């Protein structure tokens, strides 16, 4: 793909990820468990991963996190996001390359890893292992949310013409 075209597409995907992050922050998801998220922004990351490349997906994810940090200025939440997003992306890239799984399932594993990464950061920051108590709920919600987001992502991946 031509460089100019790639840069434009990356910018578009990153901007979409940023907007989706903002939309996500508007959804009041009060289930009483910290860290439960739908993960709208992952739609843009999945799109980049499947239609562009793994490196491009990392760029989209990175720009999103940086953008959210600059726009909403919550550095503690940024530490969470970086750990979650990095682990999630790493897992999804590996699964896409080495396992024959459908996109929604790759996304589900990504969702679970995202939550796991956040818990690890929370345990490290507070030095309190008990926070892992929330892990089972987060594995469940990560799986379900990941599948739903993955289904949307799969539609985009197969239908959007570049």
């Amino acid at each position, binding site marked *: 793909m031509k460089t100019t075209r790639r840069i434009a597409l990356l910018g578009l995907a990153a901007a979409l990820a940023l907007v989706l992050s903002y939309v996500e922050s508007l959804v009041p998801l*009060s289930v*009483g*468990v*910290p*860290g439960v998220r739908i993960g709208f922004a992952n739609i843009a990351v999945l799109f980049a991963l499947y239609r562009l490349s793994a490196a491009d997906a990392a760029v989209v994810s990175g720009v999103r996190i940086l953008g959210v940090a600059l726009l909403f200025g*919550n550095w*503690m*939440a940024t530490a*969470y996001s970086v750990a979650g997003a990095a682990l999630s992306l790493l897992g999804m890239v590996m699964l896409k390359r080495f*396992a*024959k*799984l*459908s996109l*929604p*399932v790759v996304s*589900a*594993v990504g969702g*679970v890893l995202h939550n796991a990464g956040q818990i690890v950061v*929370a345990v490290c*920051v*507070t*030095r*309190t292992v*008990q*926070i892992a*108590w*929330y*892990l*089972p*709920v987060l*594995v*469940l919600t990560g*799986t379900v949310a990941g*599948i739903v987001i993955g289904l949307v992502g799969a539609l985009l991946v197969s239908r959007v013409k570049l």
Partner: protein
Amino acid sequence: MMKVNVKQWLRRHTRDILVVAALLAVAAVCAAVMALTAVPGAHVCVRVDGAEVARYPLSQDRRVTLEYGGTNELVIEGGRARIESADCPDKVCVRTAPISEVGQTVVCLPHKLVVVIE
């Protein structure tokens, strides 16, 4: 209307189904083990940056304003503890459900504060 051949779909997605089932099974088993081994707690322990700074009996109703890196209003009521209000940016601690069993936590990461039942 497109007809979906269930048998074919299942065969094509065997790996997918196995992976999802494994994830759900892990969550279910962990949740079950935790529910079965749940013990009602006796103390509400406040930790900041890994060190215990305060401890209150869970059986006595009280309201404490915690001032560590910010303000968190801790409420112990009817054998359950929760953060009623806080001045942290994300309010994750306020949205966390009340806790009462050993090992349960309410976390306020911006203030590096954890309320844990012991």
